[in-house]
């Protein structure tokens, strides 16, 4: 352990904090995926609030403020709270968010009442009991790091061993139960791990940071992949990266560690939501713009081809009158066609270039194909029941089915 810390080119305390953030990041990242996919993201919040009555009971029983006993009390209370959440959800009427909320507020209310009961005994030793669990970001020891690491290893091992069952249970719990998978055992195992991780993590970084450490890596990783087998390791890596980056930044700028890690995590999530390829907000917006533009250009092309078929080449104004589209949109479409080299001009009269005429023919042929599909498509025997893409029927259903469709139409 000492040698490992010596390897890191940082002052001793900073190295321990960075290492702790790394270990906690991996553990929370992987376990957080399970919580987020089950819509129990805030379970960490409930468990850390539930620690208060646990600590109070442990203190009432032992009468001393000693770390081991209080921690055990917090862990027991966490497990009781987790079992209550699962039981309330199983009742079927209350969903996960409300179940978590009910347990959180009930446990914390109990904790406050126990705190007043303890202070009523005029016991000088009780001062600061409630602070024991909240907002201690800095004091991190090698011991904490080792405990978290061992725990994390156990958790990762369980996830790896139970991966297939976990996957089925996460996406279709009813099917998993019907297929005879040990869903309940798995649920209990994962929840217990989460409880221990939260109890240890809250000691290290505080209740609020623990919530963020569970949620941010999972949400960020979810934007980047759809496969659980990649989501779990990716969330672990992101968690570690967020933890270490936050710890290093806080060491350099002399900022408090916990909040810095949370804000780094939030920045990563916002970036992933905005830029994720194929899924992010900006990507979808760009895709929508491209689709709209393409639809506009194609329909203006057809409008122009129809007008040319019917009579002499129209001017732009005449085309506006012929087309059902608003004039401003139509003019934009004409400009785009011009830029693409599909449109020629004789004075102010519009005509199609050779490429433009070919494109218009292709477009009209596609429309005819779609009409064929609507009329005769039901007689085709296709391997899957998905609705084909109206923009390119032949590619959706394949050339053989297309030929069959044409034969049916004749």
């Amino acid at each position, binding site marked *: 352990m000492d040698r490992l810390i010596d390897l890191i080119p940082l002052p001793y305390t900073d190295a321990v904090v960075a290492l702790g953030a790394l270990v906690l990041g991996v553990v929370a990242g992987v376990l957080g995926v399970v919580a987020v996919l089950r819509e129990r993201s805030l379970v960490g919040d409930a468990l850390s609030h539930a620690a208060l009555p646990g600590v109070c009971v442990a203190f009432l029983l032992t009468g001393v403020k000693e770390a081991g006993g209080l921690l055990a009390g917090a862990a027991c209370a966490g497990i009781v709270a987790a079992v209550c959440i699962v039981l309330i959800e199983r009742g079927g009427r209350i969903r996960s968010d409300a179940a978590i909320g009910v347990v959180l507020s009930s446990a914390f209310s109990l*904790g406050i009442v126990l705190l007043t009961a303890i202070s009523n005994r005029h016991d000088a030793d009780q001062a600061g009991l409630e602070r024991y669990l909240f907002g201690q970001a800095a004091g991190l020891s090698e011991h904490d790091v080792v405990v978290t690491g061992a725990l994390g290893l156990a958790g990762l091992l369980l996830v790896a061993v139970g991966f297939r069952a976990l996957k089925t249970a996460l996406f279709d719990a009813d099917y998993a139960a019907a297929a005879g998978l040990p869903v309940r055992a798995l649920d209990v195992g994962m929840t217990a791990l989460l409880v221990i991780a939260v109890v240890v993590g809250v000691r290290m970084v505080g209740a609020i940071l623990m919530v963020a450490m569970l949620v941010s890596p999972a949400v960020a990783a979810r934007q980047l992949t759809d496969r659980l087998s990649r989501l779990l390791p990716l969330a672990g890596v992101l968690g570690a990266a967020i933890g270490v980056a936050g710890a290093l930044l806080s060491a350099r700028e002399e900022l408090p560690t916990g909040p810095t890690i949370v*804000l780094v995590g939030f920045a990563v999530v916002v970036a992933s939501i905005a830029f994720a390829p194929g899924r992010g907000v900006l990507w979808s917006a760009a895709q929508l713009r491209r689709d709209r533009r393409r639809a506009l250009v194609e329909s203006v092309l057809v409008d122009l081809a129809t007008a040319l078929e019917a009579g002499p080449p129209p001017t732009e104004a005449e085309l506006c009158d012929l087309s059902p589209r608003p004039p401003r949109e139509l003019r934009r479409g004409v400009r785009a066609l011009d830029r693409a080299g599909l449109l020629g001009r004789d004075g102010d009269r519009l005509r199609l270039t050779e490429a433009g005429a070919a494109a218009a023919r292709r477009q009209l042929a596609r429309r005819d194909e779609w009409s064929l599909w609507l009329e005769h498509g039901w007689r085709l025997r296709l391997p899957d029941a998905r609705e084909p893409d109206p923009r390119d029927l032949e590619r959706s259903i394949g050339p053989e089915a297309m030929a069959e469709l044409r034969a049916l139409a004749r």
Partner: protein
Amino acid sequence: MSTADWQIMLTAALVATACGLLGPFLVLRRVALLGDAVSHAVLPGIVVVFLIFETRAPLPVIGGAAVFAVLCVLLIDALRSTGLVKADAAIGLVFPALFSLGVLGVQQWTANIHLDLDATIYGEIAFVPLQPWVIAGVELPRAAWELLVVVAADLLLVVALWKELKLTSFDPEFARTVRIAPALLSRVLLVAVAITAVTAFESVGAILVVTLLIVPAATARLLTDRLWATVALAVAVGWVSALGGYGVAVELDASIAGAMGLVAAVCFVVAFAGRRVLERRGSPA
């Protein structure tokens, strides 16, 4: 009973009414923990007010806190409306970030000044009678006057937008087709929750507000399917918790907010157990 007892019970009952009116909608929309999120997210608002106006007086603090509470709920709503993040995860992302901003602010700029957060925003219901206000010849605690305004506003909102809130809570897609904007209503509701929560935190403390927003509403959900009955029952359970909890607190000499929360929890457990028993009896053995 002394005047102080009545005033504390009145204040708690007002909080219970405001929370009971709004809580069922939060539970239906899967954002039950919004109260908890807001209770943490207001911290930067308090720090900013303290830095700019150098005051811890209640009204500016409520104002600053309200700004960040509204920011918090709008951020959560925006994240959720991208469709990429579920409501619970959106809450878990936003409030730790805002809280962290507040902690950074406290450590960077107010290190030399005593800004005790517990005392600034998280009020204590036992001290409510210490600040009486006389309005139109009636003497009530300041908190009660403020909460009266909030309850009236919430009641007006829920009654005026009843049909819209009901529809958008159960079937936002259908609401869109009949030209009721679900996104706008969601924002109106969340902002109302933010303002209600901030006002109530300042007078009775965060945990009591969080509890009264969730537990009575969840209890009512166990007992009925009808929305109006859910809201009415949530207010009723809130009143039972407020008045019963005060009795328990006086009897045991315990924390008032804690005892009220515990009575609410007992109501939930009774409803949950009762429902299980009825279901067992109802199903063919």
